[in-house]
């Protein structure tokens, strides 16, 4: 069985700073993989490399067995297949929630607003936001904005979703509603990679947890093993700090 998304020896540097120092990672179809690790360990960078927002310096990324990391390759079709949601939502402030969601399907897929509206309404309804479709981002709570950002990514019908600490900018009472969305997606069988500080959540739902330390995956495994019996001293130290 080949993995849906495979990374081999992925390296990424910013100037003199090497942020990914040879990452090997497999994400199977329908799997949920969690990246944990200290601040600055390279979680966000790794996610951004996966959907080609950052070009990698060395190594290979395969999507369904196709090398997508070939330098000079057009990144647009890949990005349509791999959606990402950011910590800071990054909604477009000059568009309503619905316009935010419809922009990419309109421009990339060439669909009209009228064709899209019913489908988009359905998506909003699924995440309990049908009465907020025509609000501007600054009229929405953080939790609502983040759910709109998720809907925006889902509207392109991606095969893989990346989530970069999507709950860490939220007030504690709003975290639950966003995590519920992830549970829902998990049930639908979406392939997902999450950078997260929500250890409880990772433990509950992840198929695999990877501990990143200074640009390397130091240790990975199913959550039961990694959380209960970490092998590496640094993993132990990190977990004892956050758990």
């Amino acid at each position, binding site marked *: 069985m080949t993995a849906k998304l495979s990374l081999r020896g992925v390296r990424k540097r910013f100037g003199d700073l090497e942020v990914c120092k040879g990452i090997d990672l497999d994400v199977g179809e329908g799997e949920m993989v969690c990246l944990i690790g200290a601040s600055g360990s390279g979680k966000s960078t790794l996610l951004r490399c996966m959907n080609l*927002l950052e070009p990698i310096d060395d190594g290979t990324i395969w999507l369904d067995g196709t090398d997508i990391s070939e330098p000079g390759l057009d990144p647009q*079709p890949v*990005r*349509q297949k791999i959606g990402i949601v950011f910590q800071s939502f*990054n909604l*477009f402030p000059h568009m309503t929630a619905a316009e935010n969601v419809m922009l*990419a399907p309109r*421009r*990339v897929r060439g669909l009209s607003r009228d064709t899209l509206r019913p489908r988009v309404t359905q998506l909003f309804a699924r995440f309990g936001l049908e009465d907020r479709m025509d609000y501007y981002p600054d009229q929405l709570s953080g939790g609502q904005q983040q759910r709109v950002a998720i809907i925006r*990514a889902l509207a392109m019908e991606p095969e893989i979703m990346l989530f970069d600490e999507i709950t860490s900018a939220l007030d504690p009472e709003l975290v639950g509603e966003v995590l519920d969305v992830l549970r829902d997606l998990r049930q639908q069988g979406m392939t997902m990679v999450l950078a997260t500080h929500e250890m409880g959540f990772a433990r509950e739902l992840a198929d695999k947890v990877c501990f990143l330390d200074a640009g390397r995956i130091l240790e990975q495994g199913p959550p039961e093993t990694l959380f209960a019996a970490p092998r590496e001293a640094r993993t132990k130290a990190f977990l004892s700090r956050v758990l």
Partner: protein
Amino acid sequence: MADTSSQNRAAELLAKTPTRREAYEADVRRRSNRIALISTVSVVLAIIVLVPLAPGWEAVQRAFFNGRVFAATFPGLLDAFLLNVMIFAWSAPLIALTGLAIALCRDARAPALFPVRLFGIAYTDVFRGLPVVLVIYIIGFGVPGLGLPRPWNSPYIWGTLALVLVYSAYVAEVIRSGIDSIHQSQRSAAASLGLSDRDIMRFVVLPQAIRNVVPANMNLFIALQKDVALLSFIGPVEVFRQAGVYKSLYANFTPYVGAALIFLVLTVPATRYADYLMNKQNRARS
């Protein structure tokens, strides 16, 4: 029922009674308003009383503030000002469009478009580096000097071109600063959805950038409104030139004061409004 409504009224009354701090602040405000009023009135009075005491005042009054000349020339000046308004009205959209195009040239990142980018840089450097009046002279006298047939020798065409060249360079810089002010994460978010670079610029970056620079551009267009008067050097009889004609006719400078008034009536409110927008934006950002 009646009970709750009277309770509500009591609560409202309570809400309207100023707190100690509010009372204190209101008091301070009243006092500073009073002081501002008194000092303004005394300065104005001093000017009204003292200036006429100057030895040359009567001569100045006759030459610059002559009511009879003012009444005779003001309608004519207003008429001439219509020409300023017209030149402004057709220049402004041309400037906005050219400025936008130049800003986009400067932002072209693809290597094949390097000449375009170079052109954008050269354009903004050259035309921001020249006095407006010089560009108007060079183009306004130079091009018709080629002996072009009508209507291509019209000073309106070449004067407008000069204004467009200079002002679009400034507008381009303002728009570019607006583009730079849009955070990289907005581009990332758009790119992650599979949008092309063009669409990212057109639908995500530009609409926000242009909104951010509306006040700065307003200030440019206020300056443009004044600089339209410079076209008079190459022919068009707009308000400044008309004032000059009246000055010779009446041997009196009052028409210039009339022209100045016309400009101020337009530019002062516009400047206030631009400042208001700018402040509002600064407050929203902080």
